[in-house]
């Protein structure tokens, strides 16, 4: 009887310890914002296949998180297309991340606003945690080494002059 009681107590302690470890792991690794951009490979919406963020290393990347239902995203869509055309030959890639959105809606949006730069689909919003996103749109500039360059442009529409200034600074860096 005493042995069974001891076993029960040991099991209870082990269960509590496991829950504490799980909690600590979740807090440490779960959905926290990472110091540098997390690499990802996501399906493309502008064409078939996938795109890995790391494959753009060596270029300045303008990472724009958007969705078709997001009103400021519509207001800034043409700015990103203009920036993409202006800087494409200078080693800058605008990369759209359509987030928490249906792919059909996203493609309609891209046709409507004449988006020609690469766009990937993160329908589940899996990147929101590591990129510290809680609303859309959010834009980050990454330098040639794939590191964040400056603070994020949260909300929108993105100030076009500030964005160009940031890109020029990243190209000079």
């Amino acid at each position, binding site marked *: 009887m005493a042995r069974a009681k001891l076993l029960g107590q040991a099991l209870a302690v082990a269960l509590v310890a496991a829950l504490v470890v799980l909690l600590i792991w979740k807090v440490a690794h779960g959905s926290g914002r990472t110091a540098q951009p997390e690499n990802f490979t996501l399906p493309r919406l502008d064409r078939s296949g996938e795109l890995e963020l790391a494959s753009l290393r060596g270029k300045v990347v303008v990472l724009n998180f958007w969705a*078709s*239902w*997001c009103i400021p995203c519509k207001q800034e869509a043409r700015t990103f297309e203009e920036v993409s055309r202006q800087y494409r030959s200078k080693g800058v890639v605008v990369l759209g991340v359509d987030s*928490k*959105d*249906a792919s*059909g809606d996203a493609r309609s949006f891209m046709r409507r606003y004449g988006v020609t730069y690469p766009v990937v689909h993160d*329908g*589940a919003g899996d990147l929101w945690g590591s990129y510290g996103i809680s609303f859309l749109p959010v834009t980050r500039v990454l330098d040639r080494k794939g590191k964040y360059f400056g603070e994020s442009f949260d909300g929108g529409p993105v100030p076009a002059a500030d964005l160009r200034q940031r890109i020029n600074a990243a190209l000079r860096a």
Partner: protein
Amino acid sequence: MKALVAGLAVATALGLAAPALASEQHPTLAEIEGEVMCPVCPGETLDESTAPAADRERALIRSLIAKGYSKSEIEEKLVDEYGPQILAAPPKHGFNLLAWVLPIAGVIGGALALGYLAWHWSRGRGEPEPHSVPRAGAAPDDPVDPELEQRLDDELARFDT
């Protein structure tokens, strides 16, 4: 009589199965709205949300219903688009099955543990206490120290005098 009971059972089963089958084959937006989540509102099902993203999700469901998709096919399509967390309840297969099994196992385990404890407690109370006073005329479990017995007799004799 047995045939009547069997007939009633079959009729009841068919009566319950028919609406479920109809719902699976020809779902309505209202049915699905309560079973899927809004993509941008934590903890809110689609029928609770007024967010623009929820409106787009509703439009997608409407278009799939219009195309003749079944309920399961619509849910599969939503999972493809928004990920598995779009479902309000986890699917009943794979690792997610644990979410269904564990609560039931917990309730059964808890009931068994409670039953065992109740049985053990009632059994323990029925047994005599190890150091209880023996009934009159019964032989004591432990022999009394002769010296103590003598002292007790002497004390009692003092009351008799």
